[in-house]
């Protein structure tokens, strides 16, 4: 099987998977639990999530490893389980993906702010190096460093992933629209700044995830594309912002609504498109069908 980047270089638009966190919650994950422990305790549930996205038409699946860096795991006293959890997370998705689909393993932020001295650069590097190596060993094809907002932490994560694995390195930021209509992360980083810095740090693929629904991703992709004309772009869009109905949380964007924006995202420059919070296999199925139509 050729690599993700080679496929993109051939002009192919790829479909990624949908949400993991909200899917795990549906399967009974409680808010006080460390989600990644389910890789060991509820292996069949993770496998089912990954398989349901492959069956829906995704070319790649993520992993249940978003918070499995030792800095974040320490909040649960699980820092010494980092290697075991990441290897299990990658192996579960690898099993679902088989040899004809990709695994892009999730790596989220540490939750610490470097500029406040809450944690050292060396500690952040070591945590990501350990996670990247374990995910790679567990069978990942790519590492998806996601939901990032700070340049310093992200540059370290990309370098650690690059230097400690043979995987393709993806890094996506979460941008919000400001009052005057620009896009910035909570740390104030623009898509253009992110594209330049992460490209320099060695990311193979850049992009954006979570956010405020799929339509808002289009101007972000435009800005990324303008700043980095050659670099492949990945989008994991959430199904809009959560809405509370009674005591249940719902996400407003339907599979059809999200699929209806695929052509625009591709025109803006996206090469890989999938979902984030609130998206389901039905969303991915509709998006995969939209991509298939464009391939013809």
């Amino acid at each position, binding site marked *: 099987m050729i690599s993700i980047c080679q496929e993109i270089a051939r002009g192919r638009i790829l479909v990624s998977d949908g949400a993991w966190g*909200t899917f795990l919650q549906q399967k009974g994950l409680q*808010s006080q639990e460390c989600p990644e422990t389910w890789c060991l305790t509820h292996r069949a549930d993770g496998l089912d999530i990954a398989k349901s996205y492959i069956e829906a038409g995704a070319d790649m699946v993520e992993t249940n490893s978003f918070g499995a860096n030792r800095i974040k795991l320490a909040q649960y006293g699980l820092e010494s389980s980092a290697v075991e959890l990441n290897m299990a997370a990658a192996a579960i998705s690898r099993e679902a993906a088989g040899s004809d689909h990709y695994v892009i393993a999730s790596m989220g932020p540490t939750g610490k*702010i470097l500029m*406040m001295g809450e944690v050292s650069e060396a500690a952040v590097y070591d945590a990501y190096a350990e996670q990247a190596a374990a995910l790679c060993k567990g069978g990942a094809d790519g590492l998806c460093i996601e939901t990032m907002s700070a340049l310093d932490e992200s540059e370290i994560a990309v370098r650690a992933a690059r230097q400690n694995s043979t995987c393709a390195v993806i890094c996506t930021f979460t941008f919000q629209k400001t009052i005057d209509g620009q896009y910035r992360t909570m*740390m*104030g980083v623009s898509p253009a700044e992110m594209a330049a810095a992460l490209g320099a740090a060695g990311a193979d693929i850049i992009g954006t995830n979570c956010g405020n629904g799929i339509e808002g991703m289009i101007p972000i992709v435009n800005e990324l594309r303008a700043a980095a004309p050659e670099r492949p772009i990945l989008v994991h869009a959430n199904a809009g912002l959560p809405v*509370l109905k009674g005591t249940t949380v719902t996400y407003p964007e339907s599979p059809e609504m999200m699929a209806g924006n695929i052509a625009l995202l591709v025109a803006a420059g996206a090469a890989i498109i999938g979902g984030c919070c609130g998206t389901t296999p039905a969303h991915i199925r509709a998006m995969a069908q939209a991509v298939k139509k464009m391939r013809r």
Partner: protein
Amino acid sequence: MSELLSKIAGCVERGKINATSPYPPDLKGQEGADELTQKALKENIAPQQILSEGLVIGMRNIGVKFRDNKVFVPDVLMAAKAMNAGMKHLKPFFLSGAVQRKGKFIIGTVAGDLHDIGKNLVSMIIEGAGFEVIDLGVDVPTEKFIKAVQEHPTAFLGLSALLTTTMINMEKTVKAVKAAAPATKVLVGGAPLTQEFATQIGADSYSADPQGAVDFLNKAA
């Protein structure tokens, strides 16, 4: 005298801690909130005035800019560092009672939720508005909130949540606090929250940004 206080406010707003601090680059080598607060005390400016006309003004300005998306999290964090550099010289006067704060504010992230960035930002900005902040940390069980409001009956309570799953449980906490201490005003905040949700769960105030919480406290205190 007022020039010195506005200089202090400016240092806080720009995140200028002290003379050796390299940030912000254009103020390199100049005195920061640390030195200027000491200078103001030496010039016998009342500590209360240094707080309310210096440090508080700086934090208010950065809070308003943050609300208006003119600045972002790092700017607020640097401003808070500068504020703390000045505030540490006022601590003896808080203890002696020479400086009165506007009130007490208890804050914590609700049970099951380990996220602290939003909570910490709100804490800094509310401390910078002249309130005493009692931070209970993250993953705070309802009983701990109740114990804290009973220990500090005049305090306001702030509840933070980042996850939709923990946000749902805020209602129980609000109801339990109100049952145990009916007079306590409860403020809620966090990325997934809305005004509609806050109203539905019986909270007294919601704001999408920390400055909104300050505005509520300034009116209510």
